[in-house]
Structure formats: structure tokens, C-alpha cells
């Protein structure tokens, strides 16, 4: 786990969080912010024509370009493909439980083992499924989204800063805090 996400601990620690990432720890390590412009040229190849050079629309153009980029589309797809079906599933499962409890108390009262009946089992299963979905979501986000999203965050901020005409400096890290 730790190797997939070297900032897992640092993120929780408040002030220390924006320290520069340790270089070269793993294959998924991010480029340092100063080096971001080079890879970003490649990853935004999908929509470079949409980025005009002039000032007023620059901010909007950066976000449009990032939105169209492959890596952002991938983050979005991964997020939605997990979240939408899982949300529908747990809402349906919860509503089924509530409707069964109110409309079919006979079914819910059927004994399973000793004093434990279907209703008890279903209620405890709701608790269990909540914990399970929480665990699965966190794991999915950590392994499938976080590194990519963080990379996009630096790239986007770097691009907005460059478009705005500010001098390139490591101050970009301070701006986000």
C-alpha cells in the first residue's frame, strides 16, 4: 500500500503536507512541479488547439484543455464507474430494507437461529455493507485515482500560473495551501 502512495501519511499531517515529494521512491512518483510543463505538453495533446494564448480566456482555456485531456478523462471515468453503480446499489439495498420492514413484517420476523430473525440479520448486514463499501471506496480511490489526480492538480495549477504570466517559481506550492 505504502509504495503505491508515498504521500499517504504526509497528507494527513497538516503543515508538512506540501513538502516536495521524495524523489524517485516508486514508479508512480510525481515529477517535481518545476518539471511538470514537459509531461503536460504530451498529456494535453488531445486539445492543444483549444488553448488560446491571450489573457482573458486563458483561465477558462486551461480548464477546458485539462478537462479534455486523456488523463483527466481517465480519473473521471474511474471515479464515476465506481461511484455511480455503488451508490445506486446501496440506496436500493437500503430502500428495500426499509420497505421490507414496513410492508412485510411477517417475512422479517421469520426466525433464523435462536432469537435471531431475518430482520436482525438484515439490520446487521446494513451495518456490515456500509463498512464494506467504505473500505472498498477508499481502497479504489487510493489505488486508482489519487496519484493521477494529484499529478493533474499540479499540472493544472502550473498551467494556470504560466498562462497568467507569472514568473515560474516554486511558490506554486505555497499558493495551494
Amino acid at each position, binding site marked *: 500500500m505504502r509504495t503505491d502512495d508515498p504521500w499517504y501519511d504526509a*497528507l*494527513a*499531517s*497538516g503543515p508538512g*503536507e506540501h513538502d516536495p515529494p521524495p524523489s524517485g521512491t516508486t514508479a508512480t512518483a510525481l515529477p517535481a512541479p518545476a518539471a511538470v510543463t514537459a509531461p503536460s505538453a504530451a498529456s494535453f495533446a488531445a486539445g492543444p488547439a483549444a488553448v488560446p494564448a491571450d489573457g482573458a*480566456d486563458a*483561465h*477558462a*482555456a486551461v*480548464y*477546458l484543455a*485539462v*478537462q479534455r485531456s486523456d488523463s*483527466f478523462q481517465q*480519473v*473521471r471515468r474511474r*471515479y464515476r464507474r465506481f*461511484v455511480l453503480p*455503488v*451508490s445506486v446499489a*446501496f*440506496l436500493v439495498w*437500503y*430502500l428495500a*430494507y*426499509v*420497505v421490507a*420492514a*414496513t*410492508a412485510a*413484517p411477517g417475512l*422479517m*420476523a421469520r*426466525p433464523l437461529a*435462536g*432469537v*435471531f*430473525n431475518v*430482520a*436482525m440479520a438484515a*439490520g446487521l448486514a*446494513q*451495518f456490515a455493507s*456500509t*463498512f464494506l*463499501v*467504505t473500505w472498498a*471506496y*477508499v481502497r479504489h*480511490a487510493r489505488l486508482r*485515482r*489519487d496519484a493521477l*489526480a*494529484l499529478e*493533474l*492538480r499540479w499540472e*493544472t*495549477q502550473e498551467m*494556470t500560473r504560466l498562462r497568467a504570466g507569472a514568473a515560474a517559481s516554486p511558490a506554486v506550492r505555497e499558493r*495551494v495551501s
Partner: protein
Amino acid sequence: MSDRHQTLTLVLFSAVIAVTLAITSWASRRRRGSPEEFYAGGRLFSPMENGFAIAGDYMSAASFLGISGVIALYGYDGMLYAVGFLVAWLVVLLLVAELVRNCGRFTLADVVTARLRERPVRIASGISSVTVSVLYLVAQMVGAGSLVALLLGGESGAARSWTVIGVGALMVVYVSCGGMRATTWIQIVKAVLLLGGAVTLTVLVLLRFGGDLGALLGAAAERSGHGRDFLAPGLRYGGEWTHRLDFVSLGLALVLGTAGLPHILSRFYTVPTARAARRSVVWSIGLIGAFYLMTIVLGFGAAALLGGGAVRTSDPAGNTAVPLLSLELGGGAGSTGGSVLFAVVAAVAFATILAVVAGITLASSAAVAHDLYASLSRRGTRGEVGVARVAAVGVGAAAIGLGLLAQHLNVAFLVGLAFAVAAAANLPVLLYALFWRRFTTKGAVWAVYGGLVPAIVLVVFSPVVSGGPGALFPQVDFAVFPLENPGLVAIPLAFFFGWLGTVTSREIADEAKYAETEVRSLTGAGAV
């Protein structure tokens, strides 16, 4: 209730007040008066601290005493509440917490207005946030009044009224002097106290039954007077179809309302990043889930050890089940152990009330100052924190007034109503703004008012307000809507109006603004 545990209870209540005021004065000594400081506590809380604070914000006295009381009286039906309150956190975790942290600054309106015309949406969302907060606040204050009166053994109206006024004054002091930092630490302390109290009582209950849950449930069913029916649904929400439909409506409001509660949303801004927000929700799901599991054990434990009759004699609504249980577990009435445990539980319940009302007061003062005042006044955002401090006093005064008027309303109904309004007025607009590319300003305004107005109107025409012996106006009858909780109708209506407003508006959604919202919400670019 003997003199001895009344004295001890009063001493512990004073200790709770002293500790919370000490936290407030400590927090206010370091204040700099910036909005970041006042609304978000400087955004430097750790996920664990914020997780405890969220749990402290959410676990109200209504759930500690109310849910276990309902279980002690009606058995299984109380468990439905606990499940709804917990499952709701999945909506928060999956769809709301991280995205809101990435896009917003202090309030719900910040997220929605980022891609829409600011003024009308901010005003609408400010109004709905204040409405939800005040409803929830009144519920908590009415609960506090009856609870403290019961715990101190005085049934008099004066004790209730003074409790409402005292709690109101304290929450105003916490919020206007200490802001988010004081509120958060009060909630953390309260969460630790509450969980500690719940763990102690749960262990004592389980020890009585040798750790055998089957024996506990069997004894509960036997002594409740209902037999095996006690362990199955239907004792409380069975019968007429309107009662059953009412419960489905409440269930829907509970599961969708949490993600629309302004005081819960504002907690995500107290951590530095979206990942920290995610981890604080995970902490809070763990804590809240464990807490509700213990509440269930305590409810059945009260039924098993005290019997349904004893609980009902003390309080027909069951709110004193856990305090009575603690008296029994400590060695019975008159024993030192019993008195001490009773006093501790009472003080924990009191700390719970104070922490919850402080959180809601802070969120509603943010909605007044950051959304309504900043949009309506020509001075804009200058002096906003000063306005927020004054707004906390105003909200406190309004809540005290309404709390005194509403003293005879059922607390569970008020809580359900607050969740229904939050689910109808706040959640649809938030989800549309985050996920729907074509969403427009008109759609947002329609979604907010399309949920808020039906929810309020349906309650006015419900059996709660007129037509029955327990209604607000028992003499007249204009109850044309059969359900007490408006969620089942108002929530779908809000989603429908949001859609209708969007497809009928002439404005075309700004693609670049939506791109910005989407990129920011999922990556955290440009997050404050």
C-alpha cells in the same frame, strides 16, 4: 431521583460548562479574525481530529437517548433509525465530501455558485441553509429542555424554559467568541466523552449476560411484554398504511438528508485537502457505526434489565431508558455506583447537546454572513466575520424563541423534518451542480425553492399542524396531506424542478465554468 445524584449531576454539568468555556477562551485568544479562522478553524485539523468532530457534530442526544429509548419501548423499530443515520454517510463519502472540499470555501453556496450566476443562487441556498439549521437547532433545544428537566428530576415548565435559554446563551458564546476552532474542540471532547460513556455501559450490559447476545435479546423480548414481536419490525410503524408510508418517507429523508446538512458540509473545510476530508469521513463512519451498534445493545439492554413498564413509567417517549439503565448497572437506585454512573451519563448527554447546537449555530451564522449578507449588502464581503459573530447571536435568539414556543412538539418529528428539508432543498442542487453539465442558474434556483417550499407547505397541511389531538392547532382541521414527513414527495419534486428549470431556461450552461468545476472537484486544482 434522590438528592445525592441530583447534586452530583449538577456538579458534573457545571464541570462540562467550565471545560467548554475554557476551550472557547483558549481558542479565542489565538484568533486573528480572518474568515478562514472563523468558519474553517484555519483548515489545519487532522483527519482523525475532524473525524471525531464530525461524529461529535452528528451523534446528538436524540440518538444517544432517543434511539435507545425507542428500542427499549418498541424493540426492533428503533434499529431502523440507527441504520438510516449510518447508511446516510455513504452518500456523504462517495458523492459529496471530497468534491465539496475541493470546490468550496466555507458554505454549500460556494460550490454551487462557482459555475452559475452568483447572486440568486447564493440567496436561495443561504435561505435554505438557514431554514434547515434553525429547524434542527429548535429540535435540539426542545430536546435539551425536556431532557435536562427529566435528568434533574424537575418536571416544571420553568426548568425547561431556563434550560433552553441557558443552552442558547452558551452556544452563542462558543460560536461568536471561539468560532470554528472552539466548536471543533468542543465536539472532539464531547465525542470522546460520549463514546467512552457508551462503551462503559455496553460492556456492563454485556457482562450481565456473560457476553451472550442471544440471551440479551431473549431477555429483552421476554421482559418487554411483547414477546418475539419485540425483535421484529412493526410495533411502532405497523398498522395503517399512512404510518408505514410515513416511515419510508422518513427513511428516505434520513439517508439523503445528512449530505445536505450545512453543519456537516462545513466540517470538510476544516482539513487541508480532499484526501484528508475522505479520511475524516472514514473515521467518522467507524465511530458513528460503532456508536449506533452500542446504542442498539443499550436499548435492548434497558428492555432486558428494566422491563418495558419501568421505562414507560419514567418517560412515555423512552428518553430516560439509558439513564435508568446506568442507575441499574451501577448497583441500583440508592447505591453510590448507581448515582455516579447516572450523573456521568446525564453530564455526557448535556455535553452532547452543547456540542451539537454549537456546530449548527456556526453553520447558520456562516450562511447568514457569507451567503445572505455578502449578496444582499452593498459592502460585499468586508467585515463578514463581524457580521457572522452578530449573526450567531441573532440565530441563537431566534432558536431560543422558537425553542420556547415549540416545547410541546415531538423532537423526533422535528429532527425528521430538518433532514427532509435538507434532503429536498440542499442535496439536489448540490448533485446537479457537481455532476450535470447542462445545469443552469434557473435550474439551481428552482431546485432549491422547488424542494424547500413543498417541504414546508406539506408540513403545514400535515396531521402535525392540524386535525389531531397531538397537533399544533388541534381545534382546526386542514390536514389534507396524510404524512407527517414530507420527504417522500418533496425530495423527488426538488429533483424534478431542478431538471425542469434547467431544460426550460434560455441560458446555455457555461461549458468552461463546468469544466473548471469538474476539474477542480476531482483533482483539487486551485483548492483553498
